[in-house]
């Protein structure tokens, strides 16, 4: 530790996140951490493990599974969970469709993205989770830039952006009534570059699809989508093999890849530092619905 008593920005962000995670563990009955296998949730899980070391993570993790997965990501998810000895709750969109609880869109542009909300809310209710950790960051999207670290959700899981609790200093207010819950975002103040720098500094493990690899892809709406069993091609679209990597990982039908030769964390940081497109703008069809796409989904209870 330097005698000047200075912390780097990553040390400051890490301390802030650990503080938030410990507050939740101390004040809530049944927290859960959303873990998709994506890089932000991998970093969040890493921080949560650090917050309680040498004890084990005092809460389970949950994956809202659309059924449209990259196999590499599911492998990674299961391996991490096994290594840490934590309990994994899987909330399955496929099961909800099969049970007739939600109805799937049809057509070549169909996505299960919106269906996740209902499945997530049901899982929160069934498991009586009262705090749900999400890996969302304020730099990702303009509606998220306005969200609190402790974000209150009513009985219906809804977010009311105009009626948020003031949040001052590091004094978080997690009070709620039974049936209500709090979404908690420990990575609120991190940027995409911070995440990658932290991954490099800490050696956080990620699924292989984040690194450049050859993949069969096709172009749609200016994005490279991976060839997958669930997305039929539209006339004029052709599958070709390209060197790509993913900047975000979500449902395989709506997560685009970027052309890249960055095969390790250092090269990704170099690319991220000079990129001129946001990660969601570049690679997420789900955010392109409208100017207020994210706000509308969040109001309904989305991540």
């Amino acid at each position, binding site marked *: 530790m330097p005698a000047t*008593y200075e912390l780097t*920005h990553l040390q400051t962000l890490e301390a802030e996140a650990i503080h938030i995670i410990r507050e939740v563990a101390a004040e809530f009955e049944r927290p859960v951490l959303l873990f998709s296998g994506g890089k932000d949730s991998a970093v969040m899980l890493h921080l949560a493990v650090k917050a309680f070391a040498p004890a084990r993570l005092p809460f389970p993790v949950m994956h809202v599974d659309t059924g449209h997965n990259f196999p590499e990501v599911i492998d990674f998810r299961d391996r991490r969970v096994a290594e840490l000895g934590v309990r994994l709750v899987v909330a399955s969109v496929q099961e909800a469709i099969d049970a007739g609880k939600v109805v799937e869109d049809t057509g070549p542009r169909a996505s299960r993205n919106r269906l996740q909300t209902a499945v997530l809310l049901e899982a929160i209710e069934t498991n009586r989770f009262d705090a749900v950790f999400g890996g969302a960051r304020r730099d990702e999207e*303009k509606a998220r830039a306005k969200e609190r670290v402790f974000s209150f959700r009513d009985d219906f899981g809804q977010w009311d952006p105009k009626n948020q609790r*003031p949040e*001052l200093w590091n004094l978080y*207010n997690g009070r709620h009534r039974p049936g209500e819950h709090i979404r908690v975002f420990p990575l609120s103040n991190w940027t995409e570059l911070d995440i990658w720098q932290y991954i490099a500094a800490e050696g956080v493990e990620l699924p292989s699809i984040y690194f450049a690899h050859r993949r069969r892809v096709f172009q749609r709406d200016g994005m490279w989508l991976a060839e997958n069993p669930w997305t039929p091609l539209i006339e004029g679209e052709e599958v070709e093999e390209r060197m790509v990597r993913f900047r975000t990982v979500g449902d395989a039908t709506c997560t685009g890849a970027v052309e890249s030769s960055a095969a390790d964390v250092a090269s990704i940081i170099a690319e991220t530092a000079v990129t001129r497109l946001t990660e969601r703008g570049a690679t997420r069809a789900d955010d392109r619905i409208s100017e207020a796409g994210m706000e509308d989904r969040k109001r309904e209870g989305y991540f």
Partner: protein
Amino acid sequence: MELLRFATAGSVDDGKSTLIGRLLYDSKAIFEDQLEAVERTSLERGDEYTNLALLTDGLRAEREQGITIDVAYRYFATPKRKFIIADTPGHIQYTRNMVTGASTADLALVLIDARKGVIEQSRRHAFLASLLGIPHLVLCVNKMDLVDWSRDRFEEIKAEFRAFAMKLDVRDLAFIPISALHGDNVVERSTNMPWYEGTALLHHLEEVHIASDRNLIDARLPVQYVIRPMSDEHHDYRGYAGTVAGGVFKPGDEVVVLPSGFTSTIAAVDTADGPVDEAFAPMAVTVRLTDDVDVSRGDMICRVHNRPHVGQDIDAMVCWLTAESELRPGAKLAIKHTTRWGRTLVKDLQYRLDVNTLHRDEAAPALALNEIGRVRLRTTVPLFFDEYRRNRATGSFILVDETTNNTVGAGMILGPTEVA
């Protein structure tokens, strides 16, 4: 690389959005897809110029009404520092938002229109920055291009503002003449104002010394969580996890645990990366003691010969944050201070402060939304506190309505109530 958090305040037309837009754009923190979306929306709305406020005003209601209703956080970095901007709306009804954005800021940026000079809002913003204990205040005199880059005008505003700031608790005050629209003195030094000998704004933000702002004297560790692994490997491990709120903790330090008063010695300061030699604010650590004493969440670990105030009678400045109710003597509320929850009775409202004139109204019956006043509180449990000006982490609290669970008040402790 250090992290600097700063809050901006300004009214609708003083060019705050333009200034932030320029800082973000010139530091490449605005991405092409964001800029294109803003340009598209500006065009659709018939704006004459690209409205950079649309970058931060992310909510539907904000875009529809063309106003900022909530604090927006923005991020950018230069090779020297990483910055978090809490962009707060300047309107009087948004005092609550400015207080929120300012609570964690190292520095406040207040904008003044060079043509209008120091107006009521500028004084309010400066006062709130000082009330919230922001150590550094930068006054940007904007639109210098519209006053012919006049040195006299700049000096005039500077003198007027300085006279007002003398009444406030401002540790470091800087003045920078700028033109956000043309970029003068924002990132690059202006060639239009050769008389100005200071640095450009970005350079100031990169260089301002913040490391000594933290309290490194009064060792304070509010216990957040007790770590007991209950595994064979760590059978006897018992660690007190928390975020250091002041001072420095080292193995071998003699410490006292409040409220029990038990004394012990620090055996180790642990992190997940291994033990450290020293811990200081705002590190998140786990402290182990040499003795088996009873310590739980809400307790405070500090040095034996440097203890915080311990008490249930507290004088504080409170900003009221809700329109749903008012703060009146006799009110009962939940209070959160460090990691400790309790209940509090509002015994007395001593005065309400006019945030524009600093006039104290001792006849005020209550504090309404956005109003600030001095109150006397009696809490159900003792709090372990310092004066807010000495330590923001152990001198601040929030008040919560027990019916709605909403955060309704923000408090800054002046000290223990003096017994007459």
